[in-house]
């Protein structure tokens, strides 16, 4: 279970400040390459993100997001190619519909939708990836640990 192991380890702790654990599900062709570019271009960003690479956003099942929360993620990033740029032509269009439904479902169930960032980051947008990561971390840090979800197990009557 790669999604599980990716975020299993302890959060990076720094002096007193809450360091959220973020799982990122990204497509191989655009965002992963973009993130790689961010690295090689020495874009500074925070180290809280564990990345899971998938062939396409079309492969990103919303079950992955739920599993990430189950295994202790405080936030999730889902990212792939811009519309029109999908390596498989239309994977991201299908994904976009699912993500839209999932976002509304989360909200309806009372899960703060700010815990999940959906983004399009192309292979050349290393800078944007850095921004997406930093914004997500800051936003989730402000929200605090996702205790609501983490305590579901023990709250079972």
């Amino acid at each position, binding site marked *: 279970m790669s999604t599980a192991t990716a975020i299993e380890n302890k959060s990076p702790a720094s002096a007193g400040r809450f360091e959220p654990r973020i799982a990122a599900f990204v497509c191989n062709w655009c965002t992963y390459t973009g993130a790689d570019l961010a690295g090689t271009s020495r874009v500074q960003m925070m180290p809280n993100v564990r990345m899971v690479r998938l062939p396409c956003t079309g492969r990103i099942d919303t*079950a992955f997001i739920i599993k990430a929360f189950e295994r202790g993620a405080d936030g999730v990033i889902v990212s792939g190619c811009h519309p*029109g740029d999908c390596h498989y032509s239309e994977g991201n269009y299908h994904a*976009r*519909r699912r993500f*839209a439904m999932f976002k509304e479902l989360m909200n309806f169930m009372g899960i703060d939708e700010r815990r999940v960032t*959906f983004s399009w980051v192309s292979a050349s947008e290393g800078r944007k990836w850095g921004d997406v990561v930093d914004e997500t971390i800051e936003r989730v840090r402000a929200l605090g640990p996702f205790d*609501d979800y983490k305590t*579901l197990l023990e709250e079972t009557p």
Partner: protein
Amino acid sequence: MNELRQLARKLLADKTVGVVIGYEEGQGAVTRPSFATSPEQAEKLVFDARCVQNLASYLSPRRSTVRSLGKPAVVVKACDAKALAGLIREAQVKREDVVVISVACGGVLADPRSGKALSEAMVADRCRDCDGAHTSLADHKVGQAKAPAFGSPKVDARLAELQAMTAPQRFAFFKSVFSECTRCNVCREVCPMCFCARCMADKSEPQWIESSPHLRGNFAWHMLRAMHLAGRCVGCNECERACPAGIPLSLITRKMQKVVSERFGYSPSDDPNVPAPTGAFRLDDAQEFIR
């Protein structure tokens, strides 16, 4: 009633079909699904406001015992026909493999066991926004279509109440109702649109959905069920009717129906040629939530 029986008798006698799936008197005051395989058995068939079950459920390929009875004719209400259209749309049933008997329905009871007559207070919620017309899928129409006149669905009022709450309040609400869930999977098994030969929830390598009925497993199950039924669910509400724990599942299915309708302009349809919203997309689908 006679018209229905006569038709069923004929379809069975001339071997057009092997089984007529309809309704018969059950034990006590209720009716139940009926599987008439001979002209004589067609005499059992009834149809009235107690006939709540969505018989399209029995056409799902998972029902091997029903399939073994031969080509089916199925008695459908207008709402059930949408589920049948869904099965055809998603290649689970071939249109030519089923004979559709559309019955005029003036609404069904929310609780047939109550023994009460159909009224504004007693009608099933889904009948409230039904136009009462015969389905265009009908091979045979029985009875004169009439539009039921009931108030707007109560589920919408409850949805509005939920929407007015804060997110933490909604989370607390779902926690409390999901705490009653024992993961018996009844909601799945009775659903006409849960046709997968092997449900994702039954897959164990990896175990995407924990099978244990603790809150964590229950949230995963109900969220993923909602996702998998979004754009498929026709709102027949068999899941909620059958749920042994009384979980208000229609809140979730109705919400997803609204999302799909508002975002993608899709409403449950009895036309199998209308593409499923999750099997299609538009280049300009709204993406205001994507950075």
